[in-house]
């Protein structure tokens, strides 16, 4: 993985020193809250309901065991023993003291991590497919490009005060696992007819109060032009994005209001006029960064592992885990293991310090010293030999980490909601827990099959509810929590914003309502092979409406 060079090191160290001074001045009263707020936000420090919250970037979701152990250490030393992995490949700590934040950032700098640009109207953490560099269906590893974007955008003077936050995702496989069409810019790696690698470019996607799917504005961008083109998009946005209204300030509104064709023409003109700027990426520079992400030297293995097959045949729990949480690796004899942070009835995305350490140990022993963070709030061991899977499974099971539910009804994405978040209108975590308990992970969950339920505690949509197959949005109605359901959303290459079923449900009703939706799917599906999304796309909203509300 990428290692900081001297420049990166001193850059992050200088930033920590600067923030330490700012915090000291705030505590001594030389800065008031109004002056200090933007400074703390630039360093990932929010003030939430119960305490400060620190958001730390995990660029393109790649972590070393050393980094994960450091996060565990911070959880214990400065927090209450846990952290929350988010849909943007960040981790959030919910209880740090402001006075400790400079020390925490110092600890993080030791392992080449920081919280720069995890908040504010700048280019945020660049995200990527969690299976990057490992999955069998990959065209090219997206992470070198994400790293190049990260370096270029860090403290970029022209783009530190954009009209609004700006999120970029890069996906390298045919399957979109990075939700690129709901990002401000989504880059999909493609190959052209000549076999050259480049990007299909999507612009103007986003969730929040106005969910919009990104538009493709270019079929093929040569990889050397990545920065020049990103720059062109940002220039247009920086000039034309609305600064008069916070709710209309994202690039998605600009694209929506002017039309994708107009934006395409403007971006192309800007790009062409400045093409010979210094932003063309030299191939040797791409290669230099790519070298950091060279695939690990995995010892050759037989395609079929006898140990793995044997255990599968004799142990149902293991077989289920293998079927649900392990996908094909590009190297024969290896698999990619998803570690679900969604135990039945648990808090989606939360991991205790001990969990982090267990996973760090496993990564060191069994996964070429690498861990990944998914935008679905799970962790991944990307390079596990099938021969080792029984041992890995046993170790995970020993810590309650072997829930075989990746992609199933209980693999729920949930934002912190009103249990932590100052902007929330309703709780989301307890709803996720109750749904999880209702369905469990037994025969019924298997019967239901692939189903994504996403929950947000307010219209900001941090829990991706618009793109859940079933989305739940927490609202406040006359002082009580109310939950609106959307159906048919999806975040992958068939990206779609879900449609609202109708009136909302109370907290007492919502789990039953979700069960009604799921039962309706089971009733109408063409067969077990037709998953929820496919069935919804075939039969539409009506049967669900009728089941939920009767004939009104």
């Amino acid at each position: 993985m990428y290692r900081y060079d001297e420049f990166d090191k001193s850059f992050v160290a200088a930033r920590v020193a600067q923030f330490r001074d700012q915090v000291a001045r705030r505590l001594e009263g030389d800065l008031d809250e109004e002056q200090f707020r933007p400074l703390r936000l630039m360093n990932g420090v929010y003030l939430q309901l119960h305490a400060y919250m620190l958001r730390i970037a995990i660029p393109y979701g790649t972590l070393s065991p050393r980094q994960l152990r450091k996060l565990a250490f911070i959880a214990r030393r400065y927090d209450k023993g846990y952290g929350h992995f988010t849909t943007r490949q960040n981790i959030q700590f919910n209880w740090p003291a402001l006075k400790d934040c400079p020390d925490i950032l110092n600890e993080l700098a030791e392992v080449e991590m920081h919280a720069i640009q995890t908040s504010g109207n700048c280019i945020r953490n660049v995200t990527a497919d969690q299976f990057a560099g490992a999955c069998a269906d990959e065209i090219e590893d997206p992470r070198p490009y994400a790293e190049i974007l990260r370096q270029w955008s860090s403290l970029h003077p022209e783009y530190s005060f954009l009209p609004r936050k700006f999120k970029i995702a890069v996906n390298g496989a045919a399957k979109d696992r990075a939700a690129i069409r709901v990002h401000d810019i989504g880059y999909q790696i493609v190959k052209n007819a000549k076999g050259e690698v480049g990007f299909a470019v999507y612009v103007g996607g986003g969730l929040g109060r106005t969910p919009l799917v990104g538009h493709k504005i270019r079929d093929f961008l040569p990889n050397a032009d990545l920065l020049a083109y990103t720059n062109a998009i940002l220039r247009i946005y920086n000039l034309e994005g609305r600064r008069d209204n916070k709710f209309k300030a994202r690039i998605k509104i600009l694209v929506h209001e002017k039309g994708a064709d107009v934006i395409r023409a403007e971006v192309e003109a800007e790009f062409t006029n400045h093409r010979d700027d210094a932003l063309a990426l030299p191939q040797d520079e791409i290669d230099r960064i790519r070298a950091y992400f060279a695939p690990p030297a995995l010892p050759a293995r037989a395609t079929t592992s006898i140990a793995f097959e044997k255990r599968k045949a004799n142990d149902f729990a293991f077989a289920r885990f293998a079927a649900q949480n392990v996908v094909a690796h590009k190297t024969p004899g290896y698999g990619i293991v998803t570690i679900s942070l969604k135990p039945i009835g648990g808090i989606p995305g939360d991991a205790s310090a001990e969990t982090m350490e267990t996973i760090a140990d496993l990564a060191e022993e069994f996964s070429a010293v690498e861990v990944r963070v998914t935008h679905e709030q799970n962790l991944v061991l990307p390079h596990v030999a099938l021969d080792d899977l029984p041992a890995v499974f046993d170790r995970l099971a020993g810590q309650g980490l072997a829930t075989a539910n990746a992609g199933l009804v209980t693999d729920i994405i949930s934002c912190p909601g009103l249990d932590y978040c100052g902007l929330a209108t309703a709780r989301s975590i307890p709803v996720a827990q109750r749904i999880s308990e209702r369905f469990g992970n037994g025969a019924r969950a298997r019967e239901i099959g692939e189903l994504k339920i996403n929950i947000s505690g307010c219209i900001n949509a941090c829990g991706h509810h618009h793109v859940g197959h079933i989305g739940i949005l927490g609202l406040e109605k006359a002082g009580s929590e109310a939950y609106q359901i959307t159906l048919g959303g999806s975040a992958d290459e068939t990206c779609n914003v879900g449609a609202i079923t109708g009136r909302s449900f109370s907290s007492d009703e919502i789990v039953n309502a979700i069960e009604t939706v799921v039962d309706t799917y089971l009733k109408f599906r063409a067969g077990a092979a037709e998953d929820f999304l496919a069935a919804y796309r075939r039969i539409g909203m009506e049967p669900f409406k009728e089941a939920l509300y009767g004939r009104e």
Partner: protein
Amino acid sequence: MPKVISANRLADGIVVYAGRDGSWPERLSQAKIFASKAEAEAGLLVAQNDAKRNLVVEPVVVEVTQDASGLRAVTLREAIRALGPTIDFLPRPHAFAPDANWAPAKAAKQTTHAVLRIPRSADARENDPREHELLSTTDFPQEIAR
């Protein structure tokens, strides 16, 4: 409706209430009660002074009810601020390896953060293999605090 004033402490962000003696205690039960809107607004001016003195941030007036059991916040949001998250957010105690870094003072304080935890249905209990463990675990602070 009676009112209190709440804020977050500057240095660590913890929820605090304007107390009877000018201090900022962490417990709602120790908050000074303002009987009317006018009194609360006067209290808020004093609190804003403490914000200027860098003791607290963002003081606001919070509506409460008072009965035999004490003060209770009216809105869910303020109830959660007063009592902590409504979920078992702490990792299970047994999940901690013995560790010198884990400050017992912190752990002890959390037990006072009782939760509005949603009772688990009999159904969920029956089907949940962890239930046995849950019921037999005595060192599960939130459960006891309720």
